[in-house]
């Protein structure tokens, strides 16, 4: 019984002069939910197709359970795939769609001919076993009543389930999912997200999930590999990626709210407005440093070290997003709670933030710096004052 451990070793993919994948190396643990996250065109789908065997790599190795799968067809690798467009066969009923992988694996050309399940004993037994299996999978995904419908008669969510059922029926070692939720509306997407996580827990199989939606990646995965321009720029747990983004681009890509980026000179440990109350904890050699502050880490506090004036308030119900002009004419956005008095445009406002949550990046390369932003007065270190 194979287990579904996948390893990519220095995989390249070139199309003529263009390089789509630039040396991808990734370990996907058995039974993990790994997400390849990145903007469109970053090579994440190509990586998935190479794992599936739908496309050959130009160089490098793909190992499944330690075995190099070069030259093995997709079905021989025993991986299943769910496509963004579902890719259900439109001329077949849901039942036939789910049954196809079984028939292809277990039956020969003659046994698959129509009516053979009535004429040939071997075909009859196999067909009966397949029918049972299809019913089992259909009940698992709650689509038993849809089995005799054609895909065109299904809603988006139902098509999605049918596609997952077809992937599941073969009992594959790994599931590859290529943006499976992006054609669904927001509500259904949230529901299917939960169902996929349940499915992952129930089957215990390896899931490799491709998406450009960071919220999906964060909420579902054990491991995220962030891809940009054909390379994996960071991989780790969702928490590691959110809290310790390796570059400015990753920091900006991950997170529900757009990241505030403020560029400051870094010649000395002192900082200009509006960060005059802060200093770098070490002397930096970089010319400039970009400070990345997530809008959600800024906590309004009367004794806050970051002072500004509210320019605009966007009320969203559970929270409000304030656009604040800080001293030195820097504009940032901050997420404010809505359970207390709501700020008005023109109000003075002060913020505190945990210095662990202020990310520092090199101004020219965008790489994460080890240095930290600390309050100049040691008494106020990591102060998160009372909410006003």
């Amino acid at each position: 019984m194979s287990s579904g451990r996948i390893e990519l070793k220095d995989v390249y993919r070139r199309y003529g002069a263009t390089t789509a994948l630039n040396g991808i190396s990734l370990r996907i643990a058995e039974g993990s939910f790994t997400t390849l996250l990145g903007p469109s065109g970053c090579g994440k789908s190509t990586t998935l197709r190479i794992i599936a065997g739908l496309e050959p790599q130009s160089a490098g190795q793909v190992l499944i359970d330690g075995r190099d799968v070069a030259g093995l067809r997709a079905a021989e690798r025993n991986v299943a795939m769910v496509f963004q467009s579902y890719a259900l066969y439109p001329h077949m009923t849901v039942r036939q769609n789910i049954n196809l992988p079984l028939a292809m694996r277990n039956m020969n050309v003659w046994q698959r001919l129509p009516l053979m399940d009535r004429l040939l004993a071997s075909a009859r037994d196999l067909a009966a076993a397949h029918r049972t299996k299809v019913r089992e999978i259909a009940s698992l995904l709650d689509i038993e009543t849809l089995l005799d419908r054609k895909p065109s008669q299904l809603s988006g969510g139902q098509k999605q389930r049918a596609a997952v059922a077809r992937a599941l029926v073969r009992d594959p070692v790994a599931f590859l999912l290529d943006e499976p939720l992006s054609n669904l509306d927001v509500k259904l997407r949230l529901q299917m997200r939960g169902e996929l996580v349940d499915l992952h827990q129930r089957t215990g199989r390896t899931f490799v999930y491709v998406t450009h939606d960071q919220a999906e990646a964060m909420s579902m995965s054990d491991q995220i590999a962030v891809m940009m321009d054909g390379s994996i720029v960071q991989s780790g747990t969702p928490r590691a990626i959110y809290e310790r983004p390796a570059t400015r681009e990753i920091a900006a890509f991950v997170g529900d709210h757009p990241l505030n980026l403020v560029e400051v000179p870094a010649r000395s440990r002192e900082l200009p407005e509006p960060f005059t109350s802060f200093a770098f904890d070490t002397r930096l050699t970089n010319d400039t440093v970009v400070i990345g502050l997530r809008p959600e880490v800024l906590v309004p506090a009367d004794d806050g070290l970051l002072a500004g004036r509210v320019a605009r308030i966007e009320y969203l119900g559970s929270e409000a997003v304030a656009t604040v002009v800080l001293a030195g004419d820097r504009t940032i956005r901050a997420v404010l709670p809505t359970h207390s008095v709501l700020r008005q445009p023109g109000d003075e406002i002060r913020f505190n933030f945990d210095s662990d949550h202020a990310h520092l990046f090199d101004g020219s390369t965008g790489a994460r710096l080890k240095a930290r932003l600390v309050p100049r007065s040691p008494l106020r270190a990591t102060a998160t004052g009372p909410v006003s």
Partner: protein
Amino acid sequence: MTYRLPPAVGEALTNAWLVGPATVGMLVLIFGPVLAVAVLSFTDYQLGAQGFAWIGLENYTVLFTDPIGQRAVVNTLIYVAIVMPASMILALLVALGVHRVASWNATLAGVLRTAYFMPVAGTLVAMATVWQMLMHPNVGLFNQVLGLTGVPGQEWLSDRGIVLYSLAVIGIWETVGYNMVLFLAGLTAIPEHLYDAAEIDGVRPGWDRFWTVTWPLLGPTTLFVLVVTAARAFRVFETVATLTQGGPGFASDTLVYAMYREGFVYFKAGYASAVTMVFFVFVLTLTLVQFGVLERRVHYR
């Protein structure tokens, strides 16, 4: 103060204005003539004559009992029975080939497509002359090649046993290009991700893949090609008129050529109308059967 029509009336007038001209055109130019021909087929009317007599079904009796009339009907059916399947199967094979070539060399695929489409774009009467040269008993390329291999040459266009099949070959050649372009469009419309899904599901390339994905999804295209090819094959005329004039001894006579000969050479408008009606009923029946039987089995997205 201007008077405004009630919205329903205004809309109805707009609809009539939009649909009207085309409808009138169809009635005057299609349904009217069909009706006139149907009426004429029960008369002995001769083109230019002062009057005519009702002769009931006599024109039809002659067509189906007279050896010459029978010949035309049978020849047409044989011709259709050869040209329809052969040109469709060949066109599908060529389309599959060109489609595959297109995936690695688009330029070559374009050249092939143009080459196969050439007979459709060209004038068939001019092309027929070329075929006449090819099939010439003495200097024609066919017999020259046969001569090299030691096989005796054939009288392609003047042997009573061969002439109809020679015309069918030209008919196939003429139709393959058109059908190929239609099939090619159908193949291009099959979403690539279905082939990916098939690959994942263990469908092997070649026959399995063709049977599982390509053929079912080509259904609507195939139905359309079937109808168009049938109509074209039934209409065979140019090659007969230019190469054989229905000869030798009516061995290559067909319905439309008979219609032309009886109506425009012998001026027997009544009899020609009966031939036209038979032709019309054949094509109509075939089309209705095809749509009735196949449309239920063909999947439309």
